[in-house]
């Protein structure tokens, strides 16, 4: 058992690593030039090249993967010569990178050919002092250069007297600046340390947007789960006990039809019937054909927004779970010990309730755990239909835009959920079924 446990955990970790490499590789191969999407098609080649460099896309793929996975501050530290730390920006609450120069948090800036150090004060503001004594001589070319942290969370290399003309994206637009660095390495902590990077579409940290989205999806899936499980188990048991009778036929075929109908078809029929036609008869109905999610926590202010998404998800999952339960119930009802119980004269109701159900429910519960990633697919579609601000919609939007930091983070969250629930399912199965032997 212990050996099985260790092996599954190791296999899970290897799986996650493989998936992350595959995901990174796929996006690497196909994402095209993201800068065109960010800057627009009117941007010039020079602007795009400058922006690419600022995003750190001129580094090799392997370096970027390492940076994405475990961060790159420890790699860059040797160049800057100081420890690199993050501090929360008091205004936005987002992390900022600073170099820790003997206890003084410092960043640098180049202006009119002069190097300035920005010394962080206790209240979050910074004081600018001239720092021209920091230049280092490059013995090969004879130029002076300096590696430091700039005010855009990148480790950068300035060359004295050769300020690059760079295009900087600011809140006021995209403008050209002199005195720019020659090389950029955007600093990041890496996903394993809780920093999935910046969303390219918005320029904000992915983690900040991802958390309310995960919460919304959890609410949606959770409510659907609470509705589905008891209903599906009851239907499945009813069908299983009445195998071959009309009730079983109705439940089985109905369940199959519900499962085989794509989520978007179910969702659109529900919108049509409950959101539009019902509204004509009953204007006060709580079902909304058009749901406007004005803020990330709109569902908590107006829970009726959840009605149609939950119903759609329910319709899709209900049939699946009910069929699983039915199959397992049929198998149990066929077994010898149930026959024995019936033959010895036990009331039928008691045979079903006491003997059959407990064994019959084991399989569906673990199988559901194993199929969480199948459900994730349903969630994505349901969220896209209803514009629901959850994880699925986020994956869809970022995939359409090509926002690789966001896709990678969001996809890894779904993979993590899938892998961990499968592990739990496996464990639950071994615990519930002591007859299984693992070698």
């Amino acid at each position, binding site marked *: 058992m212990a050996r099985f446990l260790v092996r599954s955990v190791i296999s899970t970790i*290897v799986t996650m690593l493989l998936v992350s490499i595959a995901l990174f590789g796929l996006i690497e191969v196909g994402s095209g030039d993201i800068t065109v999407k960010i800057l627009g098609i009117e941007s010039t080649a020079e602007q795009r090249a400058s922006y690419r460099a600022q995003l750190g896309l001129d580094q090799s793929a392997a370096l970027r993967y390492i940076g994405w996975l475990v961060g790159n501050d420890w790699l860059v530290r040797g160049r800057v010569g100081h420890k690199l730390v993050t501090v929360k920006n008091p205004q936005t609450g987002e992390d900022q990178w600073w170099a820790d120069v003997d206890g003084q948090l410092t960043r640098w800036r180049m202006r009119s050919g002069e190097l300035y150090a920005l010394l962080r004060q206790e209240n979050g503001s910074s004081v600018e002092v001239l720092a021209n004594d920091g230049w280092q001589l490059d013995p090969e070319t004879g130029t002076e250069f300096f590696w430091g942290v700039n005010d855009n969370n990148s480790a950068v290399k300035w060359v004295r007297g050769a300020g690059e003309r760079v295009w900087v994206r600011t809140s006021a637009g995209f403008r050209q600046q002199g005195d720019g660095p020659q090389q950029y390495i955007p600093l990041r902590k890496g996903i394993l340390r809780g920093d999935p990077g910046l969303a390219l579409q918005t320029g904000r940290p992915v983690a900040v947007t991802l958390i309310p989205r995960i919460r919304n999806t959890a609410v949606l899936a959770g409510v659907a789960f609470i509705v589905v499980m008891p209903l599906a188990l009851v239907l499945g048991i009813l069908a299983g006990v009445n195998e071959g009778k009309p009730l079983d036929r109705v439940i089985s075929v109905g369940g199959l039809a519900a499962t085989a109908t794509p989520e978007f078809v179910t969702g659109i029929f529900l919108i049509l019937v409950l959101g539009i036609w019902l509204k004509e008869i009953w204007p006060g109905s709580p079902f909304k054909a058009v749901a406007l999610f004005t803020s990330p926590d709109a569902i908590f202010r107006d829970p009726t927004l959840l009605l149609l998404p939950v119903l759609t998800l329910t319709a899709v999952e209900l049939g699946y779970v009910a069929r699983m339960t039915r199959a397992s119930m049929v198998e149990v009802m066929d077994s010898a010990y149930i026959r024995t119980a019936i033959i010895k004269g036990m009331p039928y109701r008691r045979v079903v309730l006491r003997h059959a159900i407990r064994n019959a429910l084991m399989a569906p519960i673990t199988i559901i755990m194993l199929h969480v990633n199948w459900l994730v697919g349903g969630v994505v579609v349901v969220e896209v239909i209803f514009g629901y601000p959850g994880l699925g919609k986020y994956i869809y939007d970022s995939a359409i835009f090509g926002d690789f930091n966001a896709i990678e983070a969001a996809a890894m969250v779904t993979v993590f959920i899938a892998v961990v629930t499968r592990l739990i399912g496996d464990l639950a199965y071994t615990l519930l079924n002591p007859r299984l032997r693992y070698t």
Partner: protein
Amino acid sequence: MAAATSSPRTEQLSRLQRWGKTVRIIFESRVATVGLMMVLFWFLLGFISLVWTPYRPNFSDFEQNLRPNSTNWLGTDHLGRDILSRLMAGTQVILLKTRLPGDFPILGGKAIPGGVALWGVFGSLTLGSVLGLNAGYRSGWWDQIIMQLLDALIAFPQIVLYLVVIAALGQGDLVVILAITVTGAPGVARLVRSLTLDIKTRDYIRAAETRGESVWFIMFREILPNIRGPLLVDSMLRVGYAIFAIGTLGFLGIGLPPPDPDWGNMVNDARRNIFFNQWAVIPPSLAIATLVIGLNLFADGLREEINRYQK
């Protein structure tokens, strides 16, 4: 001489008998019959649409957003195209033809027979069988490595894989086939592996090994033909999943490219206009649902009947 002529004839007869037996099994199950009818209905409509549709499916010949009426039996869409014609032509890309890209060698720009769903399932069957046979028959390290890779693929939620693959490679029939192949292969491989583990212990495999047959011969000529039954039933279900997936992709706007009508895309277009014209969403939605349900019923009925037969 007589023996030589008679032996193919008896074989033909027995093949015919086997064929008849299979058909009888299908029709013995009411569920399978209904499913088969639903599937055949769409195949029939698709074949008809190859030579005739009521109107031109890709031309805006009518007024926009018409309700069903005597000219346009199912109404028109938001661009004034006849929905019935589009619905019929929509079966082609799924079941009957695959459009190759312009720069494809030799057949570039042409369409080959067999729809995207069928080729996708064929691809996942091929890839899955090769992986599953190797994992199951060779076992040891092969098994470990192949299963670990497949575990990684299975851990990927399919929709995420579709989104990433299509974002990476662009839209196109071949890309969708590739996506279906990659997402379907792990399931096939697991099934093939478990069946192979069972077949492997049989005497005729031992005999083939003793004869000194090569590993590939044993895998593909000895094992594969003996596991094709469950594999075929499974592939029926897979065609259903593939159509399901194509519909979903079309709905998300990243499925099969225009100009040919695609059901998922039709649903998506109609959804945007649902307040002006509620009738346009119904036909393509029902089309996808009935085709997938038909395939599921067929596979389910078939499996049940085969199980009963074997008992």
